[in-house]
């Protein structure tokens, strides 16, 4: 069982890459869904838009969870510390949490922008 390793968060880069990776996966999924649906299933994009909404909500929830975990690792409200350039384990852990949280914020913005066209464009044509 490797779960206790979570205590060694200062050694793990997962929080840094999870948000942007989910953003990238969301982009690829929406792109592929749209291409296949419009090519094979016709011009009216109602079901496709629902699908994009579902995928987008899923991505936002997963990024939100990552952001929450990163936020906790950053531990900002404990000491209101946003400088982590020391050589301690705490600095390293909080830096990774801080950077991971900010990358999640960017990923949320990216995911919303990627999905935005589906909110306005109702057909494949």
């Amino acid at each position, binding site marked *: 069982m490797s779960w206790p390793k979570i205590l060694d968060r200062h050694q793990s880069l997962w929080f840094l890459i999870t948000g942007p990776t989910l953003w990238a996966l969301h982009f690829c999924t929406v792109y592929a869904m749209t291409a296949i649906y419009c090519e094979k299933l016709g011009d009216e994009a109602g079901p496709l838009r629902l699908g994009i909404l579902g995928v987008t909500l899923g991505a936002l929830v997963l990024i939100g969870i990552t952001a929450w975990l990163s936020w906790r690792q950053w531990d900002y409200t404990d000491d209101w510390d946003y400088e982590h350039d020391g050589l301690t384990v705490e600095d390293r852990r909080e830096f990774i949490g801080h950077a991971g949280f900010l990358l999640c*914020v960017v990923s949320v*913005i990216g995911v*919303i*922008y990627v999905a*935005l066209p589906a*909110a*306005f464009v109702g057909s494949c*044509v």
Partner: protein
Amino acid sequence: MRWWTFIGSKAMRGPAATKAQQGTADPGDGTTRHDMSDDRIVRPRLRQALCALALATLPGCSGVQHVLAPAGTDAGFLANLFWIMLAGAVVLWIFMNGLMVYVTRINVRQMSPKKAEALIIGGGIVFPTVVIACLLSYALAAMPDMRAEGTGTRLKVTGEQWWWRVEYWPEGADAPIVSANEIVLPAGSRSEIALTADKVIHSFWVPALGGKTDMFPGRETRMSLEPLEPGTYRGQCTEFCGDSHAWMAFNTVVLPQEEYDAWLENAATDAVAPEGEAATRGREVFFAEGCGACHQVRGTAATGKVGPDLTHLGSRTSLAAGTLPLDEPSLIRWVRDAKAVKPGAEMPAYDHLSDDDLSDLAAYLEGLI
């Protein structure tokens, strides 16, 4: 003297400066830089050249091929979008530079970390995110209207190298009315335009009427345009497609609905018989030279489909896909050596024809109205 040495010399004082200004400064590598006066001459010349360039581009701010002189619904929206974004950019530029001047010149003091943080998060993340989301939503909301299906004229345009094959499909028609190198559209209604290409990718764009759409071999794309102002507007291929890409243009003639109906009625008819001796002789030259193997003139034995349809060539406003005006000298020039006008054009040169033959041929072609 290089520009950085020139800038540096402004700070020079004493003998070094004198030496430099005399153009004898030793850069340390055993060579002598050229005289600084060259830079003093070049710099004003550069400024003059830039000013001239700016002036030369000013006429582009109006005319028949300009996105900011819209004559249709779609181009009007795109022009508005440009001005809105430009206004936003100007406001943002002034605000950011004003802020920079304020904190570095007017109110120079340390900012508390909280204020600095608020500035970074508010000005660096929240503000641009909201502004871009608003602009994106504004543009996206207009897309369905701009891609709405045409309700009036339907036509199909095929990108060839380097001209445009145009087919009009009136409602209920079994076969199209074929034309080339000019689009005629009615004002006040949305026309549906199907687009495809023969061998390579092209792109169809009439800046004064709307956005552009790519044309692909073996695939049909579509767009619709709603011209509002009658007039003639220039279109251009906007995807590099070979030697004469730059010469692949066309005129779009927008007519009031009644005039358009009359035009379409005429376009559907066969070619008129030549009038006058020159045109009649020109017709003989046309068939003797085998022009009909590549070109169609409906109502005659010329049924070629390789090149542009010439049935109503004389009624068009340009020759060779917007490259030349439609007049006798241009027709002669084109027939004599098309490649000299349009590199890579497939039409062979007819430079063996006499001036009289070419003139007669031009008279025949001009008479095809």
